[in-house]
């Protein structure tokens, strides 16, 4: 097990980026922190700055206004960073691919390591996605 993988197997710090979303996914992500699912018992913490993060969660269909922000955030992220696209909008653009402001989906803008589909994905699905990511990385 390399040094990098050893680090990733311990507590993961997660940064969340919301694109043009309806916030269902954002709320389900926050729900993972609350007592029923309680991600913090795995050492997973949500942080306020991308520079402290190991994992970047992206949700929402990205519109042209957000695209630059997303690229900027990705560039500021300390490498290696694992990117997870959450929800139907994050994975493929969801319902909004035909819109005149659609600039995504996420994997056309930045490289993505894992996809968690759903509209919104249940907290259990998000946790399962992150764990699969750790096991495979």
């Amino acid at each position, binding site marked *: 097990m390399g040094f990098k993988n050893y680090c990733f197997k311990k507590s993961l710090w997660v940064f969340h980026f919301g694109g043009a979303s309806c916030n269902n996914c954002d709320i389900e992500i926050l729900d993972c922190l609350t007592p029923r699912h309680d991600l913090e018992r795995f050492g997973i913490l949500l942080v306020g700055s991308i520079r402290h993060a190991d994992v970047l969660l992206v949700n929402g269909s990205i*519109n*042209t*206004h957000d695209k*630059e922000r997303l690229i900027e955030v990705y560039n500021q992220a300390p490498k290696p960073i694992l990117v997870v696209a959450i929800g139907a909008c994050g994975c493929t653009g969801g319902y909004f691919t035909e819109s*005149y*402001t659609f600039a995504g989906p996420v994997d056309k803008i930045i490289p993505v390591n894992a996809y968690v589909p759903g509209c919104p994905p249940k907290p259990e699905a998000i946790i399962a996605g992150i764990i699969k990511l750790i096991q495979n990385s």
Partner: protein
Amino acid sequence: MNTGLIIENFMEQFKSDILEVSVKNQKRIIITIMPDAIINVADFLYRKEEFRFIIATALHTKKGFEIHYHFSKDIIGLILNIHVILDKDNPQIESLSNIFNASNWIEREMHELLGINFLNHPNQEKLISEGNWAEGVYPLRKEFK
């Protein structure tokens, strides 16, 4: 206070500006007026009759550009649509934002989405189009053959 009385007062006040009155039922009425009368009508509804401004909808149709201003008289559940039809080539109308603040954002949005000019708007700047689409592009306009 009932719908009949309100409509009577309105028709008395704006006899010469009314083009059409369409009554669906006691709670849904559409009155088409001359665009020039919009300031007086909005002032009358807001200050005298105490209506609340809900929002305005702009449309692009074969007749040109149309706007429905939606006013609500909450006590009786009445929605009064004040409907105006604007010129196809140079759509413009007086802004209502000097009467009340409720129309400020929607007039800016209608300007960005359809290109309607609101005269004397306190700050007709970009609201949602920054970074999303270019100047001179009006996403909600349609192509009519």
